[in-house]
C-alpha cells in the first residue's frame, strides 16, 4: 500500500514554499514571491495555511518603515516535509510497494 501524501504539502504552491524554506535558514515574503512566481494574495493564503499547521514560523519586522514578513520552517514542518518526501519515494519506486 502507498503511504498517504500529506494533503497540506501535496499542493503545488505550498510544496514550493516548503521546499524553498527547507533550503534556507529564513526567507522574506518578497523573496518567496519572486522565486515561486505566485501572486501576493495567493502566497499570503498558503503561508497562513502552513503557519496554522505549525509547519512554518512567521515573524513581522519593519525595515525603512516598510513591513517585512520573515518565514522559517519549524521542527514540525521539517518532519512533515521529510515524511512527505519519503512517501513520494514510495510512489516513485514501484519495488517498494507493500
Amino acid at each position, binding site marked *: 500500500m502507498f503511504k498517504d501524501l500529506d*494533503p497540506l504539502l501535496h499542493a503545488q504552491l505550498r510544496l514550493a514554499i516548503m*521546499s524553498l524554506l527547507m533550503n534556507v535558514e529564513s526567507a522574506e515574503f518578497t523573496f518567496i514571491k519572486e522565486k515561486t512566481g505566485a501572486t501576493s494574495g495567493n502566497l499570503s493564503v498558503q503561508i497562513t495555511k502552513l503557519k496554522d499547521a505549525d509547519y512554518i514560523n512567521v515573524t513581522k519586522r519593519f525595515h525603512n518603515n516598510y513591513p517585512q514578513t520573515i518565514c522559517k520552517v519549524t521542527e514540525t514542518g521539517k518532519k512533515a516535509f521529510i515524511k512527505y518526501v519519503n512517501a513520494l519515494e514510495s510512489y516513485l519506486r514501484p519495488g517498494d510497494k507493500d
Partner: protein
Amino acid sequence: MHSNQESFDQKESLAVISGMIKQTQGLMQESAFYFILWGSVIALANLAHYCLLVYSSYSHPYMVWLITIPAWLASMLYGRKQSREALVTTHLDKIITVVWLSFGISIFLLIILGQVINTHFNPVIMLMAAIPTFISGFTIKEKSLTFGAVLFWLAGSIAFFTDTTVHYLIAAVATIGGFLIPGIILAKKRK
C-alpha cells in the same frame, strides 16, 4: 508558475522540490566588507606594532591593537544591518558566521592567555586564520580566498623559524594577501 491547484501528480511534486532547490543554490550574504575591514585593521596593527618595536623605544607597542575595538563594533553594526536587510539567510551563511565567530573567540583567548604566560602565539594565530579563510573560499567559490588561506599556512609555518619581532611583519603581509586583497576582489565582483 504555481497555480492554486490542491493536488498534482508525484512527478510534478519532485519537479517543484528540485526547482526550488535550484532557486536557493549559490545564495550567500556579502562578506567583502568584513575581509576589507579586518584585512586593513590587522595589517595596520601588525605594521604599527613592528615599526614601534624596531624604530622606537615606546614601551607599550601592543596598544596599537586597541584599533580592533572599533573594528569589532563596526562588524557588529554591519552584521546587524545586513541581517535586517537580508531577504534570505541560508544555512551556509549561518555556518560561516559561526565558524568566524569561533575563530574570533579562539584568537581572543590565545592573545589573552599569551599575555598571561608571556608567550607569543602569532604563528599559531596565522595557521588558525587559514581555517575559516579556506572554508569561506571553498563555500563561496572564491579562489583568492583559498590562496589567502594557503598564504596564512605558509606565513604561519615560516614564522615558527623567525624572531618574534618579524612575526608582525609576516602577519601584515599574510593579512594583506589573505583578507584584504580577496576582500577587494569580492567587492569588485559584487559590483
